């Protein structure tokens, strides 16, 4: 007789950082006890409730490998890691940000660089999205990947402009940067491992239905 897996609870990859609290609120609303997760800053694995916590950009890695059945992360992360084989199941609506091109206030340095030098230097933490955006708009760009505060790059002369994620635009304004182009609106997404999406179909569908209910109400 075939053994079934349906009784095992789903393992959920939860992103720490900006999406953390909204994600825990959502899980709480669909009936998952998140108290222990909220109270423990350093613990990473919460076996009783099937939650593991990690930085948002690691969520697709764990889910694609099947180390988590489902996960929550931003569309920005998914757009940057398109090669990860995961199912994108739902737009959760929260964590809304925009991927933008920004440069120093005044005459647009991007237009100036393209006109005089034929190429523009772009600093970003999202090399794939930036490359794709400039290719798609027919402009030659040299993409410089940085790990920390991207806003510094145009101020220090490392790049003509940046591609980055912004929610309120405060950090940009404080650094005298203005938004020149909007690339992509990003919200939190629910993703699933493709194998789990078949083998644990009923558990995943039940969770999706509960999420749809809470989002509608």
């Amino acid at each position, binding site marked *: *007789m*075939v*053994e079934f*897996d349906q009784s095992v609870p789903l393992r959920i990859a939860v992103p720490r950082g900006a999406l953390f609290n909204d994600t825990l609120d959502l899980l709480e609303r669909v009936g998952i006890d998140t108290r222990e997760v909220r109270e423990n800053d350093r613990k990473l694995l919460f076996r009783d409730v099937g939650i593991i916590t990690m930085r948002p950009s690691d969520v697709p890695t764990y889910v*694609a*490998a*099947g*180390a988590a059945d489902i996960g929550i992360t931003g569309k920005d992360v998914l757009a940057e890691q398109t*090669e990860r*084989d*995961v*199912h*994108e*199941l*739902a*737009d959760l609506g929260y964590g809304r940000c925009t991927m933008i091109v920004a440069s120093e206030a005044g005459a647009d340095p991007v237009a100036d660089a393209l006109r005089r030098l034929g190429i523009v230097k772009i600093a970003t933490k999202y090399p794939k999205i930036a490359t794709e955006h400039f290719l798609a708009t027919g402009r030659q760009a040299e993409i410089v990947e940085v790990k920390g505060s991207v806003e510094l790059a145009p101020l220090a002369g490392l790049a003509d402009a940046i591609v980055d994620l912004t929610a309120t635009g405060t950090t940009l304004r404080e650094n005298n940067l203005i938004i020149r182009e909007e690339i992509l609106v990003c919200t939190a*997404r629910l993703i699933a*491992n*493709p*194998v*789990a*999406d*078949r*083998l644990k*179909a*009923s558990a995943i*569908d039940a969770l999706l239905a509960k999420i749809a209910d809470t989002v509608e109400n």
Partner: protein
Amino acid sequence: MADRIPSGTRDVLPDEMRELRELTERMRAVFDKAAYGEVYTPALEYERTFTRDGATPDASYRLFDGDGNMLVLRADMTVPIARLAGNRYATAELPLRFCYFAHAYRKVRPQRGQSREFLQAGVELIGAPGPEGTAEALTVLSDALEAVGLRRFRIGVGDQALFPELLDQLDVDADARQLLLTELAAGDFVGVEREVRRLKLQGAEAELLLTVPRMRGGAEILDGLTGPLAHAGTGMRALLELLPERVAERVIFDFGLVRDLGYYTAAVFEVYDPAHGLPLGSGGRYDHLLGSFGRELPAVGFALDVERVHIALAAEERERG
């Protein structure tokens, strides 16, 4: 300093090789009993063999021979066997049954732990139309996995033609259709929903396009299908009735399952095991590929990734203790 080998390739040492050999011997016994004759084809083929219409998997490694011919390392075994069947068995009695244990070569993305060179075990059944041919291939697949010792595997069965047929019936134009199929093949259901909303269909029709890709489960999902789904349901039920009980209980019907290899035409399969996060193998019907090699014949086959089967088996055995 040690000499390196290309990323995505590896050496196999005696302990692992012994286990791999035992595993493939068990599969070979199943294939042999079902009258599948083992073949081997060259790892190098002319590029034109892999660029016939029906868009085959992209061969990633190209080289020139001394005469300037473009050669490729085979990207799978289905295309070489289709070539072989067209060339060497042009008038042979049908059906043809072949099996193979051979390496195939695909490109990899850096640091993803993917293999450039991977060992496939599979069969091709040529000249046997569905559903009978499909049922035979699924039975051999299931028996091979049982013989290896996997206990918890399941086989997803979909229909490559189902969603395109639905879109035809709803008169969806070519551009929108391509976008939808791309999102579906990528598993982006948020994208599917966005494209469906953009079509401005009636409520029930839009609902159908959103529901169908998520329909997956046992035989119960084939009950009570009406309208545009009735045909697909009838086909899958006919297949189910031909499957022995031991195979039928392994099957997950999945209306959202599509494979991204261009040559699949109808039934498609994927093999899953809860002990491994990636599919262990896949296959399906390719009823037009043989035609481009000179003999129009319906065909079906599958390929298992031997290393993944080995990983899943080791994980299952660990869980069993």
